[in-house]
C-alpha cells in the first residue's frame, strides 16, 4: 500500500516538474481565452502567442472555460506573475469588468479581443469582429441560395452568450424582411456539433418542409450537415459562422454553402502589436473600440481562406 502511494506521488511530482518551464527574464504576455478545445479560440491564442514571441516576449496561455470566477483567478495569477500585458477574450461583458479593472489598477494594461465589455476607459483596446455585419452577410447569402419561397430552421448558440444574440439579430434583420421565407423551428444547440446533430434530426422530423438551416456557428452547421446527410436529403442549404477550417473544407465539398470568417488571427496579432506599441510609447495610437469586418466565404473563394485568416 505504502509503495503504491509513493509511486503515485513520484509520478505526480514528475508531471509537475515537466509542466514547469525554465525561469524566463523576458517580459510576459499573459493570454487568456475561453477554451483551447475550440479551433477558433485555439487559433486566436496561438496567433497572439506567436506574435508576442516574435516581438521578444515570453507568453503564457490559459483558458477560463467561460467561467467568470475562473477568469478572476487567472487575472490574479497574471498579477502575481508580474505580467507586462494581458490579452483577454473575456468570460462575459458584464462579469468581466471588475477583473479588467483590477488588473489595470495593478498597472497591467489589458487588451480585449473577440468580445467586448460594457464599460469604456478601462481596457487599453477592445478589438472585435463585426458579428452583426458578418451575420447579415451570411443571411444574405442564405437567401440567395434558397428558393424564393420556403421554410428554414435556425440553430442558435448558447442563449446566454452575447455573440449568439447579436448573430441571431443580424440573421433576422435580413431574413425577416424576405417575403416567402418562413422560420419553422429555432433551437439552441449550445455551439455543440453533437447536439446540433440530434436537434436537426428531430427538427427535420417535425418539419419535413425545411429547405435550409442557418446556424450561429460552424460547429453547429457541421452537425446539421451530418444530420442532413444521414437523413439522405439533397439540396439542403446550410450556412454557419466563424470560418473554421473544417467548415471551409465542407464548403469546398458543397456540404455547407457559406460562412462568415471572423479574422481571429488578424485581431489577435493586432492586439499584441498595439500592446507592444503601448509598452514602448505609452499609447496604442488607436481608439479603444475597434471593429474588424468579417469576410463571406463561399465555394467561389473558399481556397483563399485558411485557419481563421485570409491567405491571399
Amino acid at each position: 500500500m505504502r509503495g503504491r502511494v509513493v509511486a503515485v506521488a513520484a509520478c505526480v511530482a514528475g508531471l509537475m516538474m515537466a509542466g514547469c518551464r525554465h525561469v524566463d527574464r523576458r517580459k510576459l504576455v499573459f493570454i487568456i481565452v475561453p477554451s483551447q478545445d475550440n479551433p477558433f479560440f485555439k487559433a486566436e491564442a496561438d496567433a497572439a502567442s506567436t506574435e508576442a514571441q516574435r516581438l521578444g516576449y515570453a507568453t503564457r496561455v490559459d483558458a477560463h472555460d467561460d467561467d467568470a470566477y475562473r477568469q478572476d483567478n487567472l487575472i490574479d495569477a497574471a498579477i502575481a506573475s508580474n505580467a507586462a500585458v494581458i490579452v483577454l477574450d473575456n468570460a462575459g461583458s458584464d462579469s468581466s469588468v471588475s477583473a479588467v479593472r483590477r488588473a489595470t489598477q495593478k498597472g497591467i494594461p489589458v487588451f480585449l479581443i473577440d468580445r467586448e465589455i460594457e464599460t469604456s476607459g478601462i481596457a487599453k483596446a477592445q478589438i472585435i469582429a463585426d458579428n452583426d455585419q458578418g451575420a447579415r452577410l451570411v443571411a444574405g447569402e442564405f437567401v440567395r441560395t434558397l428558393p424564393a419561397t420556403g421554410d428554414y430552421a435556425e440553430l442558435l448558440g448558447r442563449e446566454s452568450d452575447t455573440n449568439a444574440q447579436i448573430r441571431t439579430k443580424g440573421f433576422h434583420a435580413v431574413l425577416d424582411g424576405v417575403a416567402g421565407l418562413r422560420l419553422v423551428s429555432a433551437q439552441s444547440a449550445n455551439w455543440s456539433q453533437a447536439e446540433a446533430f440530434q436537434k436537426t434530426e428531430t427538427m427535420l422530423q417535425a418539419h419535413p418542409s425545411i429547405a435550409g438551416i442557418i446556424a450561429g456557428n460552424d460547429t453547429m452547421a457541421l452537425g446539421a450537415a451530418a444530420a442532413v446527410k444521414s437523413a439522405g436529403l439533397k439540396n439542403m442549404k446550410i450556412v454557419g459562422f466563424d470560418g473554421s477550417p473544417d467548415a471551409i473544407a465542407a464548403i469546398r465539398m458543397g456540404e455547407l454553402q457559406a460562412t462568415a470568417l471572423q479574422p481571429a488571427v488578424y485581431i489577435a496579432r493586432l492586439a499584441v502589436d498595439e500592446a507592444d506599441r503601448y509598452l514602448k510609447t505609452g499609447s496604442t495610437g488607436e481608439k479603444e473600440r475597434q471593429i474588424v469586418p468579417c469576410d463571406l466565404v463561399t465555394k467561389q473563394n473558399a481556397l483563399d481562406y485558411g485557419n481563421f485568416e485570409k491567405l491571399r
Partner: protein
Amino acid sequence: MNSVAQTLTNSDRLASGSARGVLILLRARAFLVLFLLLALFSWMAPAFLTANNFSILAKHVAISAILAIGMTFVVLTGGIDLSVGSVAGLGGMVAGYVITQGVTFGGAQHFPSIAVAVLITFAVCLVVGAINGWLVAKVGVAPFIATLGTLYIARGAALLLSNGKTFPNLAGSATHAGTGFSVIGQSFFLHVPTPVWIMAGLFAFAAFVAAKTPFGRHVYAIGGNERAARLAGIRVPRVKIISYIFSALCAACVGLIIASQLEAAHPATGETFELNAIAAVVLGGTSLMGGRGSVLGSLIGAFVIGVLADGLVMLGVSEFWQMVIKGLVIVLAVAVDQLQSRLQAKFLPLLLRSSPQAGA
C-alpha cells in the same frame, strides 16, 4: 401462516388489495411516465408518432441508454461512475487519432483497419475502467472521488491527443485505413439504426447477467451489504472492477457511435453525459445506495429523458424551459422513489398477512 390468513376480515382484504394496487402503480411509474409522455407528444406534435421519428428517437436515446446500462452495475454495487462522459470523449478521440494519424511503430506510420481502431479504442477505455475499479476496490478511494479524478484525466487525455483540435473526415479514404467507420453510427439493419441494435444487444446482455448469473447476484449482494457479501465469500474487489470496466466499455461504444455519426471526433464530446446517465438510472428506480434496481429500469429511464428532450424540441420549447422540465421530472421521480419505499415498509405487514404463500 395459514391460520393467520384465515382470520382476515373483509376490510383487511380490501385494504391489502388497494395497497398492492398502489405499490404496483408506483413500481411501474417509469413506464407510466414514459407512456404519458408518448401520448402527450403524439397528441401535440403531429409528426411525433411516425415510424421514422421513432427510429431517430431511439437512436438519440441509445446514447444515454448505453451509458445508463453500464452505469447500472456500478450503482448497484453502491458506487457511481462520473467518468463515463469523458471516457466517451476519449474513446472517440482515440478512434479519430488512429484513423487519421495512424500508429507509429518501427519508425514507420501504419494505418490499421477500422476494426483494429475500434479494438484499440476499447482497450484504452478498458484501462480507464480498470483504473476506476482498482482505485475504488483496492485503494479504497470513494467512488465519487475516484471517478471524478478520472473524469478530468480522461478529458485532459482527449484534449492532449489532438492538442485540442477536432479530428475531421473520419469517413476515411482508401489510401489510409479504408472506409467503413461511419457504419457504426449511420447504417441500418432491418430498417433499425445500428446504434439502436448496439443498445438492444448491450441491454439483453446486461439484463441476462444481472438476473441470471452468479456475477449478477454478487453485484446485488455487494450493494445490499458489502460486509455480508465479503463474509459470504464473494470476491468483492473483482466484481467491482469488472463493473467499472463494463461501464467504461459502454462509454467507449457511445464515443464510437457519436464520432461515427458526425464523422468527426471532438475532444469536448460527452461533457455532462454522465449526468444524463445517472438521471436515467435513478428514474428507472435504481437506488443510489446500491443493491436495488434493474437494467430494464435504466433503459426506460433513458427513454423518458430522450422522449422528453426530442418531444420538447419538436414542440419548439426553448432550451431554458427544457432544462427546467427535465429537472422537475428527475426530482419528481426520486421523490416518488422515496414514497414507494416508505409505503412499502408501511404496507408490508398487511401484504404478508393477506398472502399466505408470501411467508412460506
